[in-house]
């Protein structure tokens, strides 16, 4: 379809150019005419102003002389000059005395107020009137008229010629522009056709003409563009194919993800950065009872959704206002508890794309946790009850045991015949065995209750081992077993630990070895292991016997409670089966490990190590064991004990050794007795559990009553030699303690240590 000329580029350029030219020419001609009029007007005025003084100068003298002939001659001469239509001189009395170029019969023209070329007179003039003056005396008036014919003709000529030139210029311009337009648009037409072909899909159109001019360069650029377009299309096609494959893969992944999300039990919600819903899975709708919420769809504002969910919360939730990642429990009004995990979804450039909300029903887990907490609390309560029971039972068992053993000691200290002595010794032995069994049971119960605590005091390990083996020598000798010990010379100096428990371990293992060996040898080897970076000493002890051995299949379980190597062991050898379990636990508490090797019929070796700190010099000065009471002078002892049997035992044993004992039955009496005469007593033996005022509080009161410099040794008699009781005793102000059932030697040794430290009064 051929475009109208004025719609084509060529036509528009041409019309525009002509319009611009015409406008400019119009302004040019108008301005020229205006300038002509103005300038010529100015020139006329200037001429008039120049003529007037010249004529004035020429006329003043003849006018003053009334020489009108001269005046006339001047006017005639002036009139002969081109450009002046007429001149006239009027004297002071108003009489025309000279005139040239104008009839005397006609009235002179009225002077023009301003110069005007647009006059319609036949003979256009600029009429001027000027006074003829000399030195202020007006001699007459000069009238003259400037001929404007030439100016007007010039203006007319300028206009005509200007229009002619403008018209010619427009025609010439039109022709040139048309030709130029033809040249340009012809090539543009070719470009247009080529562009159409490209648009229709022919991506390799024939090359368009190229050149050095602007259009030629456009053609070159078009050719380059069409080549580049073809290449881009090829690349795009390849990319499109890849995109299709990726789209298929993405669809597949999307389907998988959708299936995964749908199958998840967690409620999943994706929201975009405009806080609108992008995706929710079925579980989300189920969790929030939104199965019938038809508005739940892509684009739903989060605020609408959260408003819908608000009634489900048991109380007002402010978490919706929080921003950023979040993990939070949501309590619902129906009793359920949901866990919300909200994380931001970021693009690779860290731009926030939205948020992922995961809701999981943790009601069961919450309930289970609550139950676990309840069970834990119940277990802790049970443990506490067990501990209290143990403390009570320990006291209740030890107290009568103390009475039994004490009484036996007293009786054995009396005059008895051989039969009585034999019976009492057997009873004593049984009592000792029972005490050991009770101790094992109580120790095991402590272990079960987690209440087994170790003392940390300085002690001499070498002495402890020698003393322990010394005690067991008699038992070993009775079975014709040689008890040998090898203690490493590097085991020098004091160590920090629980000598009582360590003795228990060594005693248990050695006693077991003695029990299961006859006519053999038991070797106890003590070595020091390699230096440790934490500074502790790795004490390695092995007890090797040549006894009956342990079956290999039992070695793995002998450290279990209630397990013995053989079911006949208890029957043949006795024991509760708790000893090794207790030993294993104690070794573990000391940071060590215990193991056993055995060959049936040849013997066993029990190896264990404990990690003990080295005691410093000051700590090493403290005695590690209770020394025997040697050379103890008779003491005045205040005994506070409420149990009648224990009273008799203590009184009998102490008095037997020459000590004076003042008995009180409760803490109050103890405090009163001390207050009555603090200097009367050398030491106080204080039972822990007494009515009215227990031993701890009585000790505190006594300490409060002591004057400066006074300090009476107070030794606790406790049936619970646990760490708690020990610490309680020492914290109350007691100096030492003796466990029930106590051995008189132990009591005397403690008295000897504490009373010796006290300065005699």
């Amino acid at each position, binding site marked *: 379809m051929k475009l109208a000329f004025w719609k084509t580029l060529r036509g528009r350029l041409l019309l525009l150019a002509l319009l611009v030219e015409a406008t400019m020419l119009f302004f040019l001609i108008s301005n020229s005419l205006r300038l002509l009029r103005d300038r010529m007007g100015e020139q006329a005025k200037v001429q008039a102003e120049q003529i007037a003084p010249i004529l004035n100068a020429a006329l*003043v*003298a*003849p006018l*003053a*002389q*009334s*020489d009108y002939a*001269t005046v006339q001659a001047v006017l005639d001469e002036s009139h002969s000059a081109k450009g002046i239509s007429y001149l006239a001189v009027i004297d*002071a*009395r108003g009489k025309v005395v000279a005139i040239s170029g104008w009839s005397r019969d006609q009235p002179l023209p009225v002077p023009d107020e301003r110069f005007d070329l647009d006059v319609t007179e036949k003979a256009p003039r600029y009429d001027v009137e000027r006074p003829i003056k*000399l*030195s*202020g*005396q007006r*001699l007459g008036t000069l009238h003259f008229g400037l001929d404007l014919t030439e100016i007007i003709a010039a203006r007319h000529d300028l206009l005509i010629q200007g229009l002619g030139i403008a018209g010619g210029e427009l025609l010439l311009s039109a022709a040139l522009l048309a030709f130029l337009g033809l040249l340009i648009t012809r090539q543009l037409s070719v470009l247009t056709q080529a562009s159409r072909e490209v648009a229709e899909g022919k991506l390799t159109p024939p090359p368009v003409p190229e050149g050095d001019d602007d259009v030629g360069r456009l053609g070159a650029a078009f050719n380059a563009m069409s080549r580049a377009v073809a290449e881009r299309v090829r690349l795009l096609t390849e990319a499109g194919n890849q995109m299709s494959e990726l789209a298929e893969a993405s669809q597949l992944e999307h389907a998988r993800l959708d299936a995964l999300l749908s199958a998840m039990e967690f409620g999943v919600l994706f929201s975009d950065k405009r806080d609108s819903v992008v995706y929710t899975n079925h579980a989300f709708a189920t969790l929030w009872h939104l199965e019938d919420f038809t508005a739940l769809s892509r684009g739903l504002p989060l605020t609408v959704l959260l408003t819908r969910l608000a009634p489900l919360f048991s109380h007002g939730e402010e978490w919706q206002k929080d921003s950023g990642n979040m993990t939070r429990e949501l309590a619902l009004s129906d009793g359920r508890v949901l866990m919300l995990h909200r994380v931001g979804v970021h693009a690779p450039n860290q731009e926030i794309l939205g948020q992922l909300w995961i809701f999981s029903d943790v009601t069961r887990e919450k309930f289970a946790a609550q139950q676990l907490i309840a069970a834990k609390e119940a277990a802790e309560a049970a443990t506490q009850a067990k501990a209290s029971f143990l403390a009570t039972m320990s006291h209740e068992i030890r107290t009568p045991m103390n009475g039994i053993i004490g009484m036996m000691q007293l009786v054995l200290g009396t005059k008895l015949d051989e039969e009585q002595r034999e019976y009492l010794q057997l009873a004593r032995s049984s009592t000792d065995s029972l005490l050991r069994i009770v101790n094992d049971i109580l120790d095991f119960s402590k272990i079960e209750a987690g209440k087994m605590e170790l003392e940390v005091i300085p002690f001499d390990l070498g002495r402890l081992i020698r003393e322990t083996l010394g005690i067991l020598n008699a038992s070993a000798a009775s079975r014709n077993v040689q008890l040998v010990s090898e203690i490493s010379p590097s085991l020098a100096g004091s160590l920090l630990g629980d000598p009582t428990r360590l003795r228990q371990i060594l005693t248990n293992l050695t006693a077991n070895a003695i029990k299961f060996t006859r006519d053999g040898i038991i070797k106890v080897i003590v070595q020091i292991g390699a230096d440790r970076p934490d500074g502790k000493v790795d004490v390695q002890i092995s007890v090797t016997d040549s006894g009956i051995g342990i079956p290999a299949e039992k070695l793995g379980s002998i450290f279990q409670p209630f397990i013995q190597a053989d079911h006949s062991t208890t029957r043949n050898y006795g024991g509760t089966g708790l000893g090794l379990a207790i030993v294993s636990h104690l070794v573990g508490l000391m940071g060590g490990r215990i193991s056993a090797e055995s060959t049936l019929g040849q013997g066993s070796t029990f190896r264990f190590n404990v990690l003990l700190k080295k005691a410093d010099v000051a700590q090493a000065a403290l005695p590690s064991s209770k020394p025997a009471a040697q050379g103890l002078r008779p003491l005045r002892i205040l005994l506070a004990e409420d149990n009648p049997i224990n009273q008799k035992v203590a009184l009998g044993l102490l008095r037997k050794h020459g000590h004076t004992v003042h008995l009180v039955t409760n803490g109050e009496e103890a405090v009163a007795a001390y207050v009555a005469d603090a200097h009367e007593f050398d030491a106080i033996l204080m039972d822990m559990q007494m009515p009215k005022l227990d031993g701890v509080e009585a000790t505190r009161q006594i300490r409060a009553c002591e004057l400066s410099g006074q300090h009476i040794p107070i030794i606790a008699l406790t049936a619970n030699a646990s760490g708690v009781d020990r610490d309680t005793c020492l914290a109350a102000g007691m100096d030492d303690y003796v466990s029930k059932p106590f051995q008189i030697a132990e009591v005397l040794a403690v008295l000897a240590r504490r009373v010796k430290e006290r300065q005699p009064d």
Partner: protein
Amino acid sequence: MRFKFLLGFSIALLSGIFNMPVAAENQAAFRIGIAPHTSARVIVEMYQPLRIYLENALGRPVEIVTAGDFTEFARRGLQQQYDLSVTTGHQARLFEADAGYLPLMTYKTDFKAVFLVASNSSYHEPRDLANSTVIGLSPSSLVTIWGQHWLHRNAVANVNIRYVSASDSVAQLVLNGEGAAGMTSLANYQNLQPAVRDRLRILNESLPLVGRVYLLNKRHAAMKERINSLLWAFAETPEAQQYFQKYKLVGYRKLDSRELVEMTPYANEVRQALKQIK
């Protein structure tokens, strides 16, 4: 002086007010004819202070007019064209005698005529001017008539007298060599530009003659006293003082009637010249 001026001004003003029937511009102009002793331009400029003063005093337009030459001036004066005339003594006598003008006053400065030659010329004696051209104003001018008498008395033969209209032209023509000598008034000579005056030399100077005389036209006889008073009042004004000083006229003085009588012979010559023109 100041009091007299104020008195005279007041009288003149009041006279003008009482005697002024209509606006000044509607009355005929009071024409003061000045003898063409110099160029018309100079004459008009010279007498402007007097014109302005009388115009204000009379309350009517006042014109300063002159003529192309003394002869024409005399003719016009005799034709009663001037309301007030200021002319040299010989014409004043003619106007008095033949036209009935009323003499009023003259200048204090003596009027003298001089013969001028170029300073570097060889003319030192009257006889040196024999066979030369002498420039003079019109035949009716007093200076010219005196000069002619001097040449005659000194028997200077064969002198061509060339008449010019303006006395300042006399000096130029002498300096240009167009005349051996020129006849002009001493006042005119003294009023020449210094550069021109210094190039001239006075060959001869006349005895004091009656100079310019103020004469009132007889038709204004009723105003004689008033006009006389106004002129004397004008003489007291700073403008008149400046005018007197500039043109070395010193001031007005009364004119003795015998002074004009002594100018009768010169007046006769003017009369004869006028008759010949007719």
